[in-house]
């Protein structure tokens, strides 16, 4: 026996009985409220073996339990009396055993009741303390002005979309920025429009050079218009052009396009118009005095270090 206990570390072997609760049912009245809109309606009959009312879980107060289970014998027996001694020994033992059993059970019941009540009391106290702590924390937060939004910690629900306005209104700053953007866009479009107008006006001005204003020019133009071109010369020109295209392997159209592109590039680089006249931008710069400033700056730089210019020219 001892060896076996040693083998298992002084632990009893075998299957132990399940630990049962001392009280089968709760000893405190369960406080429950009926949930609204549940159960049977007034006119609807309820099925057999059921009730319309809320069924509460069973509860037996300890006093009732003691009164039912640990009943004292009808006749009070004094274990020191002569009457008790007169009983047969088996009955004496039986009575004593019954007494001890009753005493132990009573003790167990009372102890368990106290334990449960203490536990409930402790829980209540814990909750009160928690509430006090929360109150203090809230006061502290109010003092320090620390507010944590509950909604910011969770995802927004669909029903929360409907609570406020669907679209967030613009703030005052956003409104100001938007107005500024609109104004800038309008001004930009105006500027582009005016630039185009200026360019067209300039083109018209340059073209006006060829306009017929005087009588002499009119005569010249009429003569030019009615002049019969020499056929020989024309044929020669055509043959010459064909020779060039066949030899080079490049078509006339590409050549023409290339010419146009090169002319445009040169115009852009030099800031000149198609007819080698100043561009609209150049005129605007001149009018604003930008080109004059540039010229003055360039002159100053030249005076300061003329060697760099000479070096560049030699390269």
């Amino acid at each position: 026996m001892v060896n076996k206990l040693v083998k298992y570390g002084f632990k009893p072997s075998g299957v132990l009985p399940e630990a049962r609760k001392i009280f089968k049912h709760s000893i405190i009245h369960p406080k429950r409220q009926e949930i609204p809109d549940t159960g049977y309606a007034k006119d609807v009959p309820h099925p057999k073996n059921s009730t319309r009312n809320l069924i509460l879980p069973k509860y037996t107060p300890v006093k009732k339990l003691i009164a039912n289970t640990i009943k004292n014998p009808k006749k009070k027996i004094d274990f020191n009396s002569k009457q008790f001694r007169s009983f047969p020994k088996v009955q004496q033992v039986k009575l004593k055993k019954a007494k001890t059993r009753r005493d132990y059970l009573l003790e167990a019941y009372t102890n368990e009741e106290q334990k449960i009540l203490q536990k409930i009391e402790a829980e209540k106290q814990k909750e009160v303390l928690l509430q006090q702590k929360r109150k203090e924390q809230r006061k502290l937060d109010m003092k320090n002005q620390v507010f944590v939004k509950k909604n910011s910690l969770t995802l927004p629900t669909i029903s929360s979309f409907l609570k406020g306005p669907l679209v967030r209104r613009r703030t005052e700053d956003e409104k100001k920025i938007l107005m500024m953007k609109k104004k800038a866009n309008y001004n930009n479009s105006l500027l582009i429009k005016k630039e185009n107008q200026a360019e067209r006006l300039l083109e018209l001005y340059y073209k006006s050079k060829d306009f017929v204003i005087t009588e002499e020019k009119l005569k010249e133009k009429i003569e030019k218009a009615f002049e019969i071109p020499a056929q020989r010369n024309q044929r020669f020109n055509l043959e010459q052009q064909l020779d060039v295209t066949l030899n080079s392997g490049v078509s006339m159209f590409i050549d023409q396009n290339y010419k146009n592109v090169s002319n445009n590039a040169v115009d852009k680089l030099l800031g000149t118009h198609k007819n080698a006249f100043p561009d609209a931008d150049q005129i605007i710069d001149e009018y604003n005095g930008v080109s004059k400033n540039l010229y003055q700056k360039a002159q100053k730089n030249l005076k300061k270090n003329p060697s760099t210019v000479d070096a560049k020219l030699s390269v």
Partner: protein
Amino acid sequence: MSLVKLGYICSHLQNCATRRIPLTSIPYTRQSINVALHLYKEGFISAISKGSVVRPDLPSENIEVTFDNIATRKLWVTLKYRDNQPVLGKFRLVSTPSQKFFLSDVEIKALSSGLSVRKIKPQQPGELILVQLEDKKIIDLQEAAKNNVGGLVLCRART
């Protein structure tokens, strides 16, 4: 939103369900959100989420709806299927723009209790009928009957 647009939503969702499409988008308006929410509560659809024209928003991104992006905002609806059959079988308008059914509280109670009112057939088990109140609030027919209110009968959905 007009009944016409609600009609578009109804037919769009019904068509998507017949073609077994898992995700669709509907306009981001108050009425469509309300309708989608009721469908979700009754179990006709499995999810609702905000999103753009291209796709629903990810859970990590919380995009605010502003006047700058309202044109691209949509409400994404996940449709539900059981045994390859759509849960949202029929979704139709009851009131049409040419024939609107404004029911009183008594008529709504009658409709909810299984009687046909005018041309509207009675509510079947598992069927959702939506009612619009005077203050544009959309509620379920049962809720309307419970609160003794009348209104415009909008649409009905069933499997």
